């Protein structure tokens, strides 16, 4: 039997949360091993839409989102690679048959201003003039000029490689099969028979977090779903902001962005069922067709554009659509960051920096109350 591999911190889960945490922990000089079942950033982190948006988040999430945006803006320099971050805006639009949504957007804009989120309300001729491709059903829009989008396929691996260069141990194809606290240390065994040991354990295992949470006597009603994604063939680059429909109706809630290469990345509408044990998710054709129908409401002229590929990944959801973020309520030295409910991509860098701060200094300025794990224990 080989001796355990030791570090100050052990991270289970190599999505953007785990990779960013590893990166920022290394910047504090803390030694890290990260264990990933597959390749880093492959599921929720790599297959999501790529929105880097603050707009639309609950107000209490904005401090964390603001911390994140500061990192996104310097990501290329920080990571030493281009993750295709484009700060060209994020726009939500509402339909005529839901005039109340336009009112909601105005109220949100007024409240969000105190969190440095400046939103511009556009409607009528001004909206048509600036976004002539939008369909006649579109009534009003809320534009956040300093939100944007990035390439999710590149982002998780970029944090992982940067963390590695900074000295982190990033172990891919290395599945954690058991975790326990033995004395002052956490002991994690992997499928290939290795043992990792550290006084602090951070669980960033997304849809696979539940097993570890329960192993430490806590609970989180975690479920998983797969985003409904596709990409079109390229056309000349013209659309800066990512644009989505604000609606309470899941079917209607489509969104798209254009990458500089020219393709439109499209997401939203009905999500796909997942098979976390098989590490697979399959796009249902009826979901694709429904999404394409909705896209033609948003942009009537889009019909001639070809879809090249559909895809999905496994995202973890919690009932209140807020993540679990912060220390365990039961076991000292144990931390969590999972359950981002389809809205974690933008937060990833900020979560990494916040967890590193929390673990490194014992405190953080970000209020984590809303994300406590024991919010589920009385249910």
């Amino acid at each position: 039997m080989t001796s355990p591999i030791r570090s100050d911190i052990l991270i289970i889960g190599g999505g953007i949360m785990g990779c960013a945490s590893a990166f920022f922990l290394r910047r504090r000089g803390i030694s890290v091993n990260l264990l990933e079942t597959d390749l880093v950033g492959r599921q929720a982190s790599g297959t999501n839409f790529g929105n880097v948006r603050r707009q639309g988040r609950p107000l209490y999430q904005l401090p964390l989102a603001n911390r994140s945006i500061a990192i996104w803006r310097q990501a290329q320099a920080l990571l030493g690679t281009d993750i295709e971050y484009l700060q060209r805006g994020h726009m939500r639009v509402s339909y005529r048959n839901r005039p109340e949504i336009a009112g909601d957007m105005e109220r949100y804009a007024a409240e969000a201003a105190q969190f440095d989120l400046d939103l511009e309300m556009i409607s009528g001729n001004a909206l048509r003039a600036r976004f002539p491709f939008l369909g006649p059903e579109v009534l009003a829009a809320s534009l956040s000029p300093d939100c944007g989008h990035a390439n999710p396929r590149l982002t998780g691996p970029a944090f992982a490689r940067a963390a590695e260069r900074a000295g982190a141990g990033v172990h891919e194809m290395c599945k954690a099969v058991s975790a326990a606290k033995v004395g002052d240390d956490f002991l994690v065994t992997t499928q290939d028979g290795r043992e990792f040991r550290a006084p602090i354990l951070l669980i960033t295992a997304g849809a696979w977090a539940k097993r570890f949470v329960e192993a430490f006597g806590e609970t989180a009603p975690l479920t998983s779903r797969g985003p409904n994604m596709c990409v079109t063939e390229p056309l000349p680059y013209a659309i800066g902001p990512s644009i989505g429909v604000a609606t309470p109706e899941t079917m209607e809630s489509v969104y798209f962005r254009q990458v500089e290469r020219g393709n439109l990345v499209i997401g939203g509408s009905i999500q796909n069922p997942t098979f976390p044990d098989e590490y697979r998710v399959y796009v249902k054709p009826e979901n694709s067709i429904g999404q394409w129908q909705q896209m033609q409401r948003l942009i009537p002229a889009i019909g001639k554009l070809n879809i090249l590929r559909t895809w999905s990944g496994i995202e973890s959801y919690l009932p209140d659509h807020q993540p679990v973020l912060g220390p365990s309520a039961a076991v000292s030295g144990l931390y969590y960051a999972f359950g981002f409910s389809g809205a974690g991509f933008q937060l990833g860098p900020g979560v990494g920096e916040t967890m590193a701060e929390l673990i490194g200094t014992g405190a953080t300025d970000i209020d984590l109350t809303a994300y406590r794990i024991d919010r589920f224990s009385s249910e």
Partner: protein
Amino acid sequence: MAEPSIIVVGAGPAGFRAAQTLADAGLRPIVMDEARRAGGQIYRRQPEGFTRSHQDLYGTEANRARSVHDGFDALLPHIDYRSDTLVWHLSDGQAWTLGPDGHRSTPYDALLLCTGATDRVMPVKGWHHAGTYSLGAAQIALKAQACAIGSRVVFLGSGPLLYLVAAQYAKAGANVAAVLDTSPFSARIAALPNLLCQPAVLWNGIALTRDIKKAGIPVLYGVTPVEVVGNPETGVGSLRFRASDGTEQDIDCDAIGMGHHLRPEAQLADLARCDFAFEALTRQWLPVQDSDGRSSVDGVYLAGDGARISGARSAEVSGRLAALAVLKDLGFPVDSADLTHLRSAKARYGRFARGLAQAFPWPSEQAKALPDETIVCRCEAVTAGTLRETVREAGAREANRAKALSRVGMGRCQGRYCGLAAAEIIAAEAGVPLESVGRLRNAAPVKPIAIGTARTSGE
């Protein structure tokens, strides 16, 4: 019991024989075919109104082509034939199609995938210049539209199709500048024991080469392509290559037809979640099947070149055999003598196919030698250098990871034409066996489809 729903995808030789076998058993299979007219690729029919004879179009294979075409026409009253219909996804036991009437889903009890093949292509520096076609495309231009791809054409690559297309062009009166075979002649000698199990087919191949040479067209073996020389305005200008004696030569041409044998169109088998296995001889991943064409998934059957490249004659046999497997599994009586006969025929064709793979090997060493500036993925303009950097700098060792990081295989063809070459480049750069690089996962839609095909209700 209600009559089972059996879907045959593809109306080439495999799909035709499968449907015929099912109809003979008193069933009414649904035949879905992407083309407007049945026949598949090698026996592709010319559009209505074109009047060239079978002899002109198919040469030595005229009788076989006629029997497939006439046989299919005779079958029409007994099958549910859906032409011009793309099966773009499989989900929950249903085939999702896009046809003349839009989107539709059809449940199946058995699914026979007879999806055929496309060219397997090794990139060459400059192959993105206009005027570079696959051998299959060059043949379709001739067969379907009576057009040549250029006024002075070079055919490059290896495999039986190289000689067939060149001979067809020569016979049609096109100007063929040369046939450049990347495989050494010695490989053909080594393959003879396997090739001799189909002497008639072997003889046809030899006769084709003889016809080409008789027409005064140079045929060179053991050639290494160096560069398709051209420019963005005028396209292909010449082909630079290294002859087997090591000398570098330029040959003027305005079009190149290239391909290195074929690869199965196995996307639907992947979407059906069939297991795939690596075949060392041809250096590619193939859907797993038993001797009769059963895949690893219950109710999904494989036949023809879509499962394994064995040629049109073999496809007729494997199509019939897979249909018998369907019948047997659904509880219909099946003549065991038929099974035995077809299995041994399929095995014989399999041996011949191995001979062809030996005679016309995929030039994997060329992938390693491609200059960095060579475009590998033509859809997304990803160069060999970018791909290698993805391996070196970002640590990609697996095909799908390299795709995610470099965009290789992310364009209109979804890696159908560049995936196999890209895998070779990744393996060579990473210093790992090709097998460990894996294969690109297939995703719906199988071919690009327009957003507007999804009609909203009321239209």
